[in-house]
C-alpha cells in the first residue's frame, strides 16, 4: 500500500506525524523522530515570550492513560528561531543524520492579538504548516477556558493567524472537551482555516495518591492521552469531517498505538496521523511500526493507496442509506 501523500502541497512519505507536546523541544529531537520513521514532526507549542510550565509531577501514566500538566513551557521566539533554523537547514533527501521531514510549527498565545504576533514571527521561519494550539486544558487557571471551547473565540484566533500566515497552511488544533466540535470547526472554516488537528488532550483528569490524599499532578489536573482516549478521538474526527464536508485535511491524533488504530482514524476522516503518547508505550520506533502495520493491513485487504481510506466510514454509511 502506498503510504505517501501530498497534503496542501507538502509531501509526506507516510501519514505518521509526531504530535505536539512531546519530544518536540529541539532540532536534535525532531531529527531523531524522523530517523525513527515519522513522516512529519510537530514542534512543542511555541510562545512569543518565555512561558514557565508547571512544577513536577507533570506526566504520569498507567497502561491505559497518561495525564500531563506540563503547562506549555517554552523559552520564547529566540529559541524557536535557533531550533527551527537549525532543523530547516537539513535537506529533505540528505543523509539520515540530518534528513528533514515536513515541519509543523505549533503556536500558542494568551490573547487573540498575541496569536497573530506569534504566527507572524513563526511564519518567517517558513515551516511547512502552522498548527494553532487553542485547546490546551492545562493552563485554565492561568488563562481561563481554552479558545477552542467557543466558536467565536476559535474563529477570532483563526482570523488573526490567517491574516499573517501568507501561503503557509493553517491547522487549528481542536478540543474534544466541547458540546459540539463540528460547529466550532465550521466557524474556523469560515474564518479561513486550511485544516484541523483533532484532538488535543481530554478532560482534564485527576489522579489522587491514597495515603497523602493529594492530587499527584502539581497542577492537580492534567490533559488525558493514551489508548483510553482513542474512541473519543475517532468520534471527534468523524464529527469534524462531516461538519467540513470532508474538504479540509485533518491530522487525527489521540490514543493511536497501532497501524490498525491509524487505519481507523483514516476511515473516520483523518489524512495524517498524530502520534505522541504512544512513544511512551512502544518506544520511538512506534512511527516505523505503525507504518509497517498499516502497510501489512493494506496488503491483506488489497488497498493500493492510503488516500482511498480517508473518510471511508462516511462513504460506507452513505452507501448503506441509499
Amino acid at each position: 500500500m502506498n503510504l505517501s501523500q501530498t497534503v496542501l502541497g507538502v509531501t509526506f512519505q507516510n501519514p505518521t506525524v509526531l504530535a505536539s507536546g512531546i519530544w518536540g523541544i529541539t532540532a536534535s529531537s525532531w531529527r531523531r523522530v524522523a530517523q525513527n520513521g515519522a513522516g512529519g514532526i510537530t514542534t512543542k507549542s511555541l510562545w512569543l515570550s518565555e512561558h514557565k510550565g508547571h512544577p513536577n509531577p507533570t506526566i504520569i501514566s498507567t497502561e491505559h492513560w497518561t495525564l500531563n500538566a506540563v503547562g506549555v513551557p517554552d523559552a520564547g521566539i529566540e529559541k524557536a528561531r535557533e531550533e527551527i533554523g537549525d532543523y530547516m537547514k537539513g535537506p529533505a533527501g540528505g543523509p539520515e543524520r540530518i534528513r528533514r521531514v515536513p515541519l509543523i510549527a505549533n503556536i500558542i498565545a494568551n490573547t487573540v492579538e498575541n496569536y497573530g504576533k506569534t504566527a507572524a514571527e513563526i511564519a518567517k521561519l517558513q515551516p511547512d504548516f502552522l498548527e494553532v494550539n487553542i485547546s490546551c486544558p492545562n493552563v485554565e487557571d492561568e488563562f481561563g477556558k481554552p479558545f477552542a471551547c467557543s466558536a467565536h473565540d476559535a474563529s477570532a484566533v483563526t482570523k488573526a493567524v490567517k491574516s499573517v500566515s501568507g501561503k503557509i497552511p493553517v491547522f487549528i488544533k481542536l478540543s474534544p472537551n466541547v458540546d459540539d466540535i463540528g460547529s466550532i470547526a465550521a466557524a474556523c472554516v469560515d474564518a479561513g482555516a486550511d485544516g484541523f488537528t483533532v484532538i488535543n488532550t481530554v478532560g482534564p483528569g485527576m489522579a489522587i495518591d491514597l495515603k497523602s490524599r493529594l492530587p499527584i499532578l502539581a497542577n492537580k489536573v492534567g490533559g488525558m492521552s493514551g489508548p483510553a482516549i482513542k474512541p473519543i478521538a475517532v468520534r471527534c474526527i468523524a464529527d469534524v469531517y462531516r461538519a467540513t464536508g470532508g474538504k479540509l485535511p485533518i491530522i487525527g491524533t489521540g490514543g493511536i498505538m497501532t497501524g490498525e488504530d491509524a487505519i481507523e482514524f483514516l476511515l473516520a476522516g483523518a489524512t495524517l496521523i498524530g502520534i505522541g503518547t504512544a512513544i511512551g508505550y512502544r518506544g520511538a520506533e512506534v512511527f516505523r511500526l505503525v507504518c509497517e502495520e498499516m502497510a501489512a493491513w493494506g496488503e491483506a485487504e488489497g488497498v493500493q493507496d492510503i488516500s482511498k481510506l480517508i473518510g471511508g466510514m462516511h462513504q460506507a454509511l452513505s452507501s448503506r442509506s441509499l
Partner: protein
Amino acid sequence: MTCGCGNRLPITYRIASVKKETEHVQTFTFAVSLGAKPGQFIMVWLPGSDEIPMSVALDDGKKLQITFFAVGDTTKKLASLKKGDLVGLRGPFGTHYEWKPKQHLALVAGGYGAAPMFFAATEAAKDSCTITAIVGARSKEHLLYLDAFSGLPGTTLSVATDDGSQGHKGYNVDILRDILEAKTLQLRSGSTARAVDQVFACGPEKMLLAVSDLCFQHKVACQLSLERYMKCGYGLCGNCAVDASGMRMCTDGPVVKNDVAREIMEFGKYHRDGLGKKHPL
C-alpha cells in the same frame, strides 16, 4: 498491551529512617525495593510539592535509600521530613553501570555522587570485583560514604579535597590520572598492580569531562552518569534529549559509555532547563 509501565505513577511510602551524613546531606531509608540497579534513578515526589530525579543510593532487595544534599527548594523541604512521613517514589528509570565478575573498577565520586558509586561498589563487590574508590569533595566536611567504602571487601579508598583538609589536595581526577599512569597503583591498593578494567564516574559534569578525557587518552573503558532536567523519567516528554543525537538521558542514560558521552555535543558545555533553554556549565 505490555508497556512495562507499572512504574509511572508515584507510590507513597513512609520514611523508615533518617541518617544525617553531613551538615546538609541526609539519607532516607524506605522499607521497599524497587529493583533498582546502581546508576539508575527514581523520581522522588514530595506530596503537594515538586518531584525531582535522584540517583538510587542503595536498593538491596529489601530496602531503598536516597542520599541528597539540601541545596534547592525541594531538597530543603525534603530535608525537613521525619521518620514516618510520606514520600512518593516512581521508577527505577534509565541505564545502570555494568561490569563483569572479577574486574578491577576505579570509581570516581564527586560530592553526593558518592552515593550511587557506593551502590555500584556494593554490588560489584558481590561479583568479586577489585574496587578502587576515589571520593572527592570541596572539603573534609562534604566527604560522603568514607566509612561505608572502607568497610567493603576488596576495596581501596582514596580521598581528595579541593582545600586539602583531607587526603590529596586537589581533584579526585588527579588520583585517577596517577592510577591510570600506573605510578601509584601498587602503593594505594596495597595489593595487585593489575590495570584498571573500567572507570565509573558520578559527580559534577566538569569532573565527568575530565574523567572522560583521561580515559579516552589511556584507552580505558569508562561509564559516566549524566544529569539532565527530567520530567516524565521514561522517555516521553523529551526534555532530557541531548544535542545533537537527540538521545534521551532518562532512557538512553543517565549512565552512558564514554564513546557515547563523547558524541554528545553538549557534554561538558551546556545543559537545558525545563523550558528547553541552554545554560553553560
